[in-house]
């Protein structure tokens, strides 16, 4: 009698189909994802993803935190582009309390958000390179990403989980060092980025590897709730920045790059072009940044200057009220979405007038599009499945919340 091994599947045809555990921890998956694959040789017959390995109950925690303490939770959603999450949340609260920002604050936010989009796309695209065997581009571009993190550090003091900005604007104006570093970045980054482009974009080996890997049609992508670069690679020009402009995005001239195959190569190229468009937006925002305040006049939510807190009674009271969240907020529900690194990042906030959200639901693009993964890799080779996953840019933090 033949003893079935643990790895042979029950419905295998005389042992021809094998079950393979891809993950939960595997260097090629860039995160904690498990996929139980049914393999016919090296081809994938079916896949069953298991998620939730780094679930941290953000929606529950958010119901027990004042609004300003929810910001650090959003950091940890898509941690490759934390500032976009932070500012998306700030804008949600600002929508609830009806707070208009000065133009300068909005332009500052745009600069930060586009920098983080560049950082996010750099990670994704260089990792696609790594998964096809091209490590060099990754090491080069991580130096550029490091410079973006230095810029964040200059603005808010931290790098990865930034907690950047405040409800009602930015916490401080750009410092002289920031100006210097940003100018330097804008001057030298494009040439270095084009070096990376030269390594991969028209590289025969890279193209052969990526074209046709993990494709999805525009119809299926929409049905699966795709947004962001993954949707645009399939040929649909949906971008929240253009569809429902927030934070003065309507002031800037940029294009929405789209692909037509929805495969790994198109996702790569769309992100490449978005990096260039983000640079265009940063140039426009930085060159035309208006004079004025870097935050709105909302003493109920925006902390007063620290020296004032020590010397003025009024400022001390407001400081206390802001920190203890002792300020009434309107009752109602608010939806706000921003174009995150991976697509439409939405916040559905229900306020009962209390100090913390009554309910806060995050629309996390990774969570929504990752469910299409089994369909996208069905029938493909195992190595293409790895590539498809990295080109979808599934970020575990955003997937699991």
């Amino acid at each position, binding site marked *: 009698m033949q003893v079935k091994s643990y790895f042979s599947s029950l419905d295998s045809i005389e042992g021809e189909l094998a079950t393979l555990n891809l993950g939960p921890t595997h260097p090629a998956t860039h995160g904690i994802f498990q996929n139980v694959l049914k393999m016919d040789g090296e081809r994938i017959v079916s896949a069953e993803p298991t998620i*939730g390995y780094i679930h941290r*109950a953000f929606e529950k925690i958010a*119901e*027990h935190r004042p609004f300003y303490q929810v910001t650090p939770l959003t950091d940890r959603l898509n941690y490759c582009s934390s500032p976009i999450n932070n500012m998306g949340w700030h804008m949600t609260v600002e929508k609830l309390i009806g707070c208009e920002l000065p133009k300068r604050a909005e332009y500052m936010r745009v600069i930060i958000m586009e920098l983080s989009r560049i950082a996010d796309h750099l990670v994704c695209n260089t990792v696609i390179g790594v998964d096809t065997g091209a490590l060099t581009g990754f090491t080069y571009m991580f130096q550029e990403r490091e410079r973006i993190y230095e810029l964040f550090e200059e603005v808010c003091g931290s790098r990865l989980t930034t907690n950047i900005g405040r409800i009602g604007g930015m916490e401080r104006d750009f410092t002289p060092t920031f100006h210097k570093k940003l100018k330097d970045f804008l001057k030298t980054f494009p040439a270095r980025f084009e070096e990376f482009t030269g390594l991969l974009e028209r590289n025969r080996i890279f193209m052969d590897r990526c074209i046709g890997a993990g494709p999805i049609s525009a119809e299926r992508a929409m049905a699966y*709730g795709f947004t962001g670069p993954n949707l645009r690679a399939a040929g649909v020009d949906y971008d929240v920045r253009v569809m429902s402009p927030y934070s003065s995005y309507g002031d800037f001239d940029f294009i929405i790059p789209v692909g037509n195959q929805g495969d790994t190569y198109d996702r790569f190229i769309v992100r490449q072009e978005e990096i260039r468009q983000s640079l265009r937006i940063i140039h426009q925002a930085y060159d035309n940044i208006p004079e004025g305040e870097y935050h709105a006049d909302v003493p109920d939510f925006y902390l007063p200057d620290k020296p004032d807190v020590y010397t003025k009674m009024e400022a001390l009271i407001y400081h206390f009220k802001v920190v203890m969240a002792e300020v009434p907020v309107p009752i109602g*529900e608010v*939806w706000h979405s921003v174009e995150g690194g991976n697509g439409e990042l*939405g916040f559905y906030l229900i306020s009962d007038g209390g100090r*913390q959200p009554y309910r806060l639901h995050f629309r996390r693009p990774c969570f929504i599009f990752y469910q299409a993964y089994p369909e996208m890799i069905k029938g493909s080779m195992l190595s293409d499945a790895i590539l498809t996953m990295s080109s979808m840019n599934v970020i575990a933090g955003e997937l699991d919340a």
Partner: protein
Amino acid sequence: MDSEQILAQLAEKMPGAAISSEIAHDGILNIHTTREQIIDLLQLLRDDAQFGFNFLTTLCAIHYPDNAGQELCVVYHLHNWPQNIRIRVKIFLPKDDPHVPTATGLWPTANWMERQEYDFFGVIFTGHPDLRRILNVDDMEVFPMRKEYRLEDGTRTDKDDRFFGRDGHVGRSFE
């Protein structure tokens, strides 16, 4: 197409579907309906050329423990891309009978969204192809996002809103 036109057309094409409606704080139209009509309504909103709500943005549940007989709420966020209109469709359910027909037949993306809300609120989406927990461990026995489950030690009183002159939720007991 503004909110009034949507409601007028809805009354014409599916009389009785909208039990009530309101414009929310953010200007988005909320339509309240029943679970018996939800799938037909979603299908009408998606497929009818005049509505054109092609995209299910997200789906989430809410728990209102004080709303007797209608403790659970499921909210569908729909988006009409060509005209850029968003609406929300809400249904309320009793906690003892939290059954809703699944929307996976309309949008495959509803699959994980529904699994997530089942996982956290215990809303049972009937007809769902694979209604299992998704983010929590499989052997969890509670639906943790319901309000009766506290985040922290229930005996803590330092975060009690009543001490700060407000009637909030932390520190308040739910049966």
